[in-house]
């Protein structure tokens, strides 16, 4: 048989057995700094540069306040056992009420964010959350926990969300990964948050596996591929990508719930970050906006698209 087709078998695909862990908990010490570097790198190309540079600085601010925050504590054994017994995530989001560590996080983050070079609208929103009282901040956090962003206070909520990210990343990093169990499709097994996006990774030992990325605590959890991240359906899953853009970011569409979510192929583009690259691939959201699917999950930085 002659080999005259465009086919090129890839013997490297034989490879190693992939045994992905169920979760990869976030490491706050690197999460925000790596993300910030990625935002800066992505800012090097295209019209979005001012927004990406702004977000790079917001991530720097998140990173900058980590060192002086009180260390996060894992939930006690009783709370963990109860969460486990009722198939709930180990981190209880309602526990932010009266958590002084969160107030400290907000105050320090908003102070650090003051130094960011930003448009006037952003500065005003920051001033509003900086002067908001704990009850107002709590109310905004609660709104964010429902994966909604009110159209008339998006910037304020994103600042609150940035503080929550720091807080919950710390809490998630204090968990024992072995004790984190699946909760439900489309729900973070650590904190109950919605996925921001998902990515197929090229990590050694987990290559080809897909992980969802939590929009709140940054936990990555293993999720079967070709399955709707939002509703768990495996029927009618399709993919759309921008023609000629390399195929490492796609819209995974579901004909069961009529939702779509963004999926990255980090195995093809190793520097990918599930949040930074989400913003940088805004073009996909703009094109998907004209289609029949609505974007699910929670991506505050792209609110309104």
């Amino acid at each position, binding site marked *: 048989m002659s080999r005259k*087709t465009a086919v090129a078998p890839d013997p490297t695909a034989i490879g190693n*057995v992939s045994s992905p862990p169920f979760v990869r908990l976030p490491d706050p010490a690197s999460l925000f700094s790596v993300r910030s570097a990625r935002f800066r790198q992505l800012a090097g190309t295209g019209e979005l540069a001012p927004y990406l540079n702004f977000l790079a600085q917001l991530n720097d601010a998140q990173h900058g306040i980590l060192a002086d925050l009180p260390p996060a504590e894992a939930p006690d054994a009783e709370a963990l056992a109860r969460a486990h017994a009722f198939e709930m995530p180990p981190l209880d989001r309602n526990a932010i009420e009266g958590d002084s560590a969160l107030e400290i996080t907000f105050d320090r983050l908003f102070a650090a964010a003051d130094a960011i070079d930003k448009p006037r609208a952003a500065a005003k929103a920051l001033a509003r959350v900086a002067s908001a009282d704990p009850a107002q901040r709590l109310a905004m956090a609660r709104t964010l926990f429902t994966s909604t962003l009110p159209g008339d*206070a*998006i910037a304020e909520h994103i600042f609150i969300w940035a503080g929550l990210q720091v807080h919950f990343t710390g809490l998630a990093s204090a968990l024992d990964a072995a004790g984190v169990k699946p909760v439900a499709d489309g729900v973070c097994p650590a904190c109950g948050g919605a996925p921001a996006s998902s990515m197929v990774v090229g990590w050694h030992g987990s*290559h080809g596996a897909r992980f969802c990325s939590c929009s709140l605590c940054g936990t990555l959890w293993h999720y079967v*591929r070709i399955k709707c991240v939002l509703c768990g359906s495996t029927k009618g899953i399709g993919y759309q990508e921008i023609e000629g853009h390399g195929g490492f970011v796609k819209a995974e569409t579901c004909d069961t719930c009529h939702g779509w979510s963004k999926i990255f192929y980090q195995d093809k583009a190793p520097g990918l970050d599930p949040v930074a690259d989400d913003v940088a691939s805004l073009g996909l959201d*703009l094109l998907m906006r004209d289609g029949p699917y609505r974007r699910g999950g929670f991506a505050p930085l792209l*609110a*309104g698209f």
Partner: protein
Amino acid sequence: MNMELSRRQFLGAAGAGVAGTALGAFGFGDIEAAHAEAIRAFKLVNTTETRNTCPYCSVACGVIMYSKGDLKKGEQAEIIHIEGDTDHPTNRGTLCPKGAALLDFVKSETRLKYPMLRKPGSDRFERVGWDEAIGRIARLMKDDRDANFIQTNGDGVTVNRWTTAGFLAASATTNETAWETYKVVRSTGMVAFDNQARV
């Protein structure tokens, strides 16, 4: 606390204006417009990822097939890549050299698509219809069995053996198919068969 209400209170005090998107809300509305303009030149294309099973052998490794185009949306789909399925418990993302060459198998010009017959003495295969193929196979099997069936062994014990023909079933069959294959084939007396073929 009613969160909708509390938000209104907060906004009422703060007097925030209405802004539709995150970029707009932070004051980057102009670059949003520029980006929307730039992206207009591009279009979306459908691609698919589909699970399947490697058909080469009874290990039945899981594969993911990537195609350009989506059949569900009334398009042609062309397979562009096949890789081991990490989520499949049998092979966990790996493939043997045969599985790794599956794209070749799919696209092979000599791939078997219809029943083909090479008549005795001929040096070529020719295409035949299914009815003809199945009729002919049944006829030849029956003749062979009639001629060679062994009912009893040397000691006169009933054995019902048909040793002059063999049978290979598909590699990726379910348990039920394999069970049925066994029942049908073994009932004829055939002893040389594999109901989960490895080739």
